[in-house]
């Protein structure tokens, strides 16, 4: 077997380990979906009537707003799941079994890829739950099957990139508490972008930030695919940001894992 096939076999083994963990604690997956659902309901039922009118569309009101906000909530799900990944990586790194893996002749990166792929599956499941609830409260996407597939693909790509970053966050944190705080800004980025209100309604400084941070093109691309709004250069920006974040996250995580572990 070649090095690559070793890496794939070992990663599959580590993924099975992560999936077992997930099945043993399904509550974590539900929790990851819970927070965005609360925000969805809050924004649709409490603020949605007023915010929807402010969108300036033909229909307005709550029905328009649920269509506007759902892509933002989906990206919030990805960001929230990144926090979960950082926590579970930080917790896992304190376990003695990780030290055992390090003394075995396995593809080292598989410990990390197991986490990444496991977290991706978990995040995609959370997004399914969130989408289900959104559909129940009146989300009516206009996407055809191809656009749906594209939207899922884009969300998977963003999730992959942010998951690598959060794996690095989980490893750079000395404590589990630190790991839960470090990715926190990610959860706020959808608010400081086009997730909840159009960026042109923001004051100048904030608008500038919103237009240049990655979550705005992420949200615009997903919104465009699901709701048929114009995408423009958001798709290209999304790919570029994803590749950049993913690469930084991967290299950083790998470097952190190859360091000597601090004594347990």
């Amino acid at each position, binding site marked *: *077997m070649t090095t690559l096939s*070793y890496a794939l*076999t*070992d990663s599959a*083994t580590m993924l*099975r*380990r992560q999936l*077992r*963990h997930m099945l*043993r*604690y399904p509550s974590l997956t539900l929790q990851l979906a819970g927070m965005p659902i609360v925000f969805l309901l809050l924004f649709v039922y409490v603020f949605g009537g007023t915010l929807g009118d402010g969108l300036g569309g033909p229909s307005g009101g709550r029905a328009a707003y649920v269509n506007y906000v759902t892509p933002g909530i989906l990206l919030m799900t990805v960001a929230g799941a990144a926090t979960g990944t950082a926590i579970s990586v930080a917790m896992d790194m304190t*376990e*003695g*079994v990780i*030290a*055992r*893996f*390090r*003394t*075995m*002749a*396995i593809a080292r990166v598989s410990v990390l890829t197991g986490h990444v792929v496991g977290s991706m599956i978990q995040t995609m499941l959370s997004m399914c739950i969130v989408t289900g609830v959104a559909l129940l409260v009146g989300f009516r996407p206009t996407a055809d099957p191809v656009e749906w597939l594209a939207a899922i693909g884009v969300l998977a790509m963003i999730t992959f990139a942010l998951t690598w970053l959060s794996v690095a966050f989980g490893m750079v944190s000395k404590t589990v508490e630190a790991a839960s705080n470090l990715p926190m800004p990610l959860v706020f980025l959808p608010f400081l972008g086009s997730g909840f209100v159009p960026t042109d309604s923001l004051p100048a400084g904030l608008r500038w930030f919103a237009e240049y941070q990655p979550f705005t093109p992420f949200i615009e691309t997903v919104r465009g695919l699901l709701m048929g709004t114009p995408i423009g250069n958001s798709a290209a920006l999304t790919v570029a940001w994803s590749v950049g974040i993913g690469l930084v996250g991967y290299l950083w995580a790998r470097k952190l894992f190859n360091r*000597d*572990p601090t*004594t*347990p």
Partner: protein
Amino acid sequence: MTTTPPQPAITATGLRKSFGDHLVLDGIDLHVPEGTVFSLLGPNGAGKTTTVQILSTLIRADGGEVRVAGHDLARDPDSIRAAIGVTGQFSAVDKLLTGEENLILMADLHRLGRAEGRRRAAELLERFDLVESGRKMAATYSGGMQRRLDLAMTLVGDPRIIFLDEPTAGLDPRSRRGMWQIIRDQVAAGVTIFLTTQYLEEADQLADRIAVLDHGRLVAEGTPDELKRRVPGGHIRLQFADARGLESATHTLGEVSRDNDGLTLQVPSDGSLRSLKTLLDRLEDESIEVETLTVHTPDLDDVFLGLIGHHKNERVTTP
């Protein structure tokens, strides 16, 4: 055909390691022949765990040459990893998986294949008395069970060299003896064992050679018997009913260790019947009443405590 001497399983020369300003290993040399049990003995903080972590490729040394299973540690750690098994001081089991799943995880990482992995897991559960709890989460296991599972996981890959870092710390006497038997079975199968412990009895029971580590330096090395011979720990302890008996015995016996508060004397002795009889005759001649008498033969405790500069009990020596 010429016979070559057996290849050493582990050699280290001038092994050094610091954590920041704190010097943990100050140039230690090790030589462990294949198929033997080598025990590294020392108090907490002596550097035992650090030594195991370096030899088992977990952390890097600052200096020194190390070869394990014929491979250079700095250049080819992966070949070493393929030959060794490690059971650390801290439980290295996945607590969210069952015992069986933990063993199958190891089998998968050794790429044994599905059928062979299951067969091996079942065999190890049987051998380590874990069949009943094989389908329970390892988090529910007792300390002794987790330790057994830990060692079973180490054995999945049939390692030729096993590192055991304080394998019986915190275990009750029965579990400890069980663990010793498992270790002996491995030795019988030709496996080399590198064992750290702070229990002298454990080193005495299991090890072919013992090295004593203190403050990052090896202060003694040898077989258990060689080490015991290094310190004259054997003596007869006499307990008296009153200070007068103690006084006259001290007068009669001359240079002995005396404890005024405890009303005891320690007379150097090799523990033989002849020396005991001589001592009793002398006391008899002077009509000195002895309340109790105990014979103390040297054990590794004497060696250990003598070497690392502590004293088991404060002695008042008569001038």
